[in-house]
């Protein structure tokens, strides 16, 4: 059988032939034998063990819980409903919700208390220790200076990135709107499974939780927030998502839940914490995630070349 016959057999099986082409296929015994072979394979593929009733009800219950929450959040529950929802199944929380949110809250509280303790202990030293305080304050001033500089860099970067962010958001919104019929790989990647709305900046602000400890001084940019439904397996599509990914990794690290560090040869990298995927030039490529906390940045490096291809900010501004 030649290739033409083979493709004819496949298209015949799939009902993708015109009437004339079907006649040609049916007149060729080799093609029809191949069709039967492929039909047997198709039958095997379709013979899938079905889900259990419990699993089905749990999944639908979880989805309906999300639906009800969304409806409540948007006030759409004022809309008359034709009949009561029949989802009497127990509502099961989405079981893959990452556990870091609560842990991050605890971590933030611990840092805040520790910071307060240092301030109180220094204030209680009295005048006799003023020179010591001054001595010890010097490096603190240095740290503050460095920190201020870092914040300044972040602000500059945020200002530079702002138009790009807007453009990316617009593109994401457009892609999300096209979720029912995307035309390009980009649109599919962004929109086909709703990942766009699952990413930061979506309507899930009520579910947001802080990824890092609050700044006790209150003078630095707020830390990037990680939505509860953040999906780390989704390809990163822009710098904002990369920033969220970095915040997510910091949360995992603080909670002691980081996966093993990927093996890499990127000698210039500061702290590669994970490997992820990134949408780059219409393709999804593997990247290392290099978290540069001192700079307030997170970078994506190509795994094959260690070349930095995207930088995001760990702060929300």
């Amino acid at each position, binding site marked *: *059988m030649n*290739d033409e016959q*083979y493709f004819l057999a*496949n*298209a015949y099986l*799939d*009902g*993708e*032939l015109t009437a004339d082409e079907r006649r040609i296929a049916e007149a060729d015994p080799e093609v029809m034998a191949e069709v039967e*072979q*492929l039909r047997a*394979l*198709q039958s095997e*593929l*379709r013979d*899938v*063990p*079905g*889900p259990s009733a419990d*699993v*089905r009800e749990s*999944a*639908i219950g*979880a*989805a*309906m819980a*999300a*639906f009800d929450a*969304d*409806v409540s959040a948007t006030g*759409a529950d004022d*809309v008359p*409903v*034709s*009949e*009561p*929802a*029949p*989802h009497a199944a127990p509502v099961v929380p*989405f*079981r893959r919700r990452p556990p870091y949110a609560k842990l991050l809250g605890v971590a933030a509280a611990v840092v805040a208390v520790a910071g307060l303790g240092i301030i109180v202990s220094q204030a209680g030293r009295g005048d006799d220790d003023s020179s010591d305080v001054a001595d010890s304050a010097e490096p603190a001033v240095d740290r503050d200076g460095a920190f201020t500089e870092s914040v300044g860099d972040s602000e500059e970067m945020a200002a530079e990135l702002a138009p790009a962010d807007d453009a990316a958001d617009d593109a994401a919104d457009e892609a999300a*709107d096209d*979720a*029912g*019929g995307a035309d390009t*790989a*980009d*649109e*599919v*990647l962004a929109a*086909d*499974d*709703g*990942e766009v*709305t*699952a990413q930061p900046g979506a309507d899930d602000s009520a579910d947001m939780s802080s990824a890092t400890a609050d700044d006790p001084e209150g003078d630095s940019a707020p830390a990037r927030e990680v939505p509860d439904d953040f*999906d780390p*397996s989704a390809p990163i599509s822009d710098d904002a998502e990369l920033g969220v990914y970095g915040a997510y990794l910091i949360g995992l690290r603080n909670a002691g839940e980081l*996966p*093993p560090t990927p093996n890499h040869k990127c000698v210039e990298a500061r702290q590669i914490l994970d490997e992820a995927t990134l949408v780059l030039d219409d393709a999804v490529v593997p990247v290392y995630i290099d978290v540069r906390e001192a700079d307030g940045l997170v970078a994506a490096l190509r795994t094959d070349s260690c070349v930095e291809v995207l930088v995001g900010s760990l702060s929300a501004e």
Partner: protein
Amino acid sequence: MSTLERSDEDLVAAAQRGDGAAMDQLLRRHYDRAHAVCRRIAGSTRDADDAAQEAMIRVVRNIDKFDGRSAFGTWVYRIATNTALDELRKRKRRPQLHVVDDDGEAPEQADEFAHRHIDDVTDRITIDAALADLPEEFKAAVVMRDVGDLDYAEIAEALGVPVGTVKSRIARGRRMLVEKLGNQDPPGERPISDPPNDP
């Protein structure tokens, strides 16, 4: 007219207005096939359960974005495909844990059906194993076609590739599966070129 008799289009419109019963009906109508798509892509029942649940949640959260340009089922199975692929990638990134029995020999099977063999030939690999060896793009195309029942144009739209590419991926993917399952001539004897322009 009862909810059971309503078309997907009607139910979608109602769900987009906040009708929970309509949303529930849509999910029930499409869950099993979405699960089947996830099952074939993810390769294990447990991962399929997770992926199908997440797919349903994504459907719900994006129902207002669905614009009816494709059939609702197509949209759902596309979401299921992508969610299952995500699950697969996530699983590859997770450290693999192997549970051994008292003899220290038998690793835990990813799925209780993993031992099922086609025909009665015990030395043939399972369809799950054959699918697992398939490159992602071939697997997605074959599963969308043979399990999700999407046509070439719908798959092309979902994957963002031309119809000719879909045609090629399905044909090549099936060929690889057949060869891996041992039902056909060994690999190499029947190389496949790109598909002719059009059947």
